[in-house]
């Protein structure tokens, strides 16, 4: 059910001609992903998915859509030829990936502890040994700093030069 939800709303989200509706459809896609995590028993990840993506990111999307465009505005209609080519390419891509994945025999994984506690996640995140993630954690902070400065550089308006 989760995957049907994700698929249907993902297609609706990219084909919708109204930006706000696309954002709402995206919300349902993200709910579907949260369902995946719940089915896999990743309780913490599911909670994070709901709080961060639905609570934070989609709301931000909606804010920015409302701030930058008018509600009645519609996106351009895609030309039929472009639509057919794009649909063909994505269908072929999906077909290749699906056929390859379905024919591959995966090695069975021994699931020793289905429930991963927040405590484990926390220690892993700050451990610097093997399977520790402190370095990526720190690099992400540099990435965020750079992204913030980049956003400011683009958003800051100054008066046009005279030349």
């Amino acid at each position, binding site marked *: 059910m989760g995957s049907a939800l994700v698929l249907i709303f993902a297609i609706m989200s990219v084909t919708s001609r109204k930006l706000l509706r696309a954002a709402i459809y995206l919300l349902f896609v993200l709910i579907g992903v949260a369902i995946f995590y719940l089915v896999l028993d990743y309780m913490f990840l599911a909670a994070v998915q709901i709080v961060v993506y639905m609570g934070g990111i989609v709301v931000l999307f909606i804010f920015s859509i409302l701030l930058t465009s008018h509600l009645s505005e519609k996106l351009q209609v895609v030309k039929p030829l472009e639509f057919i080519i794009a649909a063909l390419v994505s269908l072929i891509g999906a077909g*290749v*990936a699906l056929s*390859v*994945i379905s*024919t*591959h025999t*995966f*090695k069975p*994984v021994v699931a020793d502890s289905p429930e991963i506690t927040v405590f484990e996640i926390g220690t892993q995140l700050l451990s*610097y*040994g*093997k*399977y*520790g*993630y*402190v*370095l*990526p954690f720190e*690099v*992400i902070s*540099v*990435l965020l*700093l*750079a*992204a913030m*400065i*980049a*956003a*400011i*550089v*683009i958003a800051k*308006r*100054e008066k*046009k*030069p005279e030349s």
Partner: protein
Amino acid sequence: MSFSEIFLMRNELLLVTAVLVILIADLSFDADKRKQFYYFSIFLVFIVTVSGLFPAKSGLLFGGMYQTGPLQAMMKNILNFSTLIILLQSWGWFSHVNQQKRIGEFMILLLSTLIGMGYMISSGHFLMFYLGLELATIPLAALAAYDYYNSKSAEAGIKLILLAAFSSGIILFGISLIYAITGTMYFEGAGQLIDGSTLSVLGLVLIFTGLSFKISLVPFHLWAADVYEGSPIALTSYLSVVSKGSAVFILLIVLNTVFASLNDIWDPLIYIIIIITITVGNLFAIRQRNIKRFLAFSSIAQAGFIMLGVINNSAFGVATVVYFMLVYMFSNLAAFGVVSAISAETGKESIDDYKGFYGTNPKLSLVMMLAMFSLAGIPPIAGFFGKFFLFTAAAEKGYYILVLIAVLNTIISLYYYLLIIKTMFIEKSDTPIPFFKSNLPMKISLVICVLGMVITGFTSGVFDYMVEMSDQLFSDMY
């Protein structure tokens, strides 16, 4: 991991420090002291570059997430050094009144992409590889849209960010497939567990495709010309040398470590890509009238030549690529330096404006001529040896037809490089670009480039040293 080991990542640590110092120092230099601020930032980048010249130790940090050695250090040195040269060439553009305020932001974003490239090259884990790639890309989109009152620049920014997102998505899908097969994200573990199944081939193709966007190999090159044309010229040269170089380096490392056992599969893949890349790059370069677009297509063709070395999966192949990148850096940055000087002085970027340039600015024309000769691969200059070694690397694997096609394409490329020289030296114009004096940093950078082009060509020790270093990729670490 002891405390002293953390200095294995001195390159990245110093760069992060430099970024933070620039961020704070930006506030304390007033509007009339921007030139001092510029020199101060250059000095910081200079320190980082020099620190890379000290002998580099090999080692693993953070349980194998970060791995370094002389080869990685050499790659980072090339990238740092190119960044330094590009920044030296940028004063002409920075000195415009409305840019002076924003030198700090430009430096910070440029250096943070350099941090990302450092982590990417040193990554021993797919997560670090991906994070480094993102850090090396996202700020570039902001820099491409830096001249936001210029619609072409905004277009460049949008194109870059959309394609970066797209290629990152492809790479992530590839990584997820590899993870599904092997159950590990570490390069070392994944390399041992890849079994040659169809799924792992799909993973290889997807990761290769994603990186091809960055290297701008045909058919993933369509963004290059528009982005190169729209971006500020400092960023154009950065994209064509540093960004491309870092992607080539990580491709070398990933192919030769993680996908070493799939060599039979990526060989024909690269074979075809090389042929279409050089041919398309060359044929389109002939038609260009804008010098930035021209250099964009020329750099696409050069990327095809670089792949000739990648196809040889031995220490010699790796060394030819690193050596060619060094030579390519000097030659391409010399060309971009001249273009940048003219663009900052007169705002002209069309090839037709270069008519009669020799009559008014003989020194700059000579530098441009040397750069064009080096890019085309005319013997006494380093570019010849770079190409020669790449051809040898491909021939060593027995791909004689491929080498023949590449040599034929070199002749085509010689034609369009000579067209530029002909425009500057022989054709006359009623309104040539008037004589102007370049500023001091630009002069220094051009002298470095010219010396580099000559010296790296004549000293055989450089190449031997690189072969020696490249051995470690195949021996002690894995």
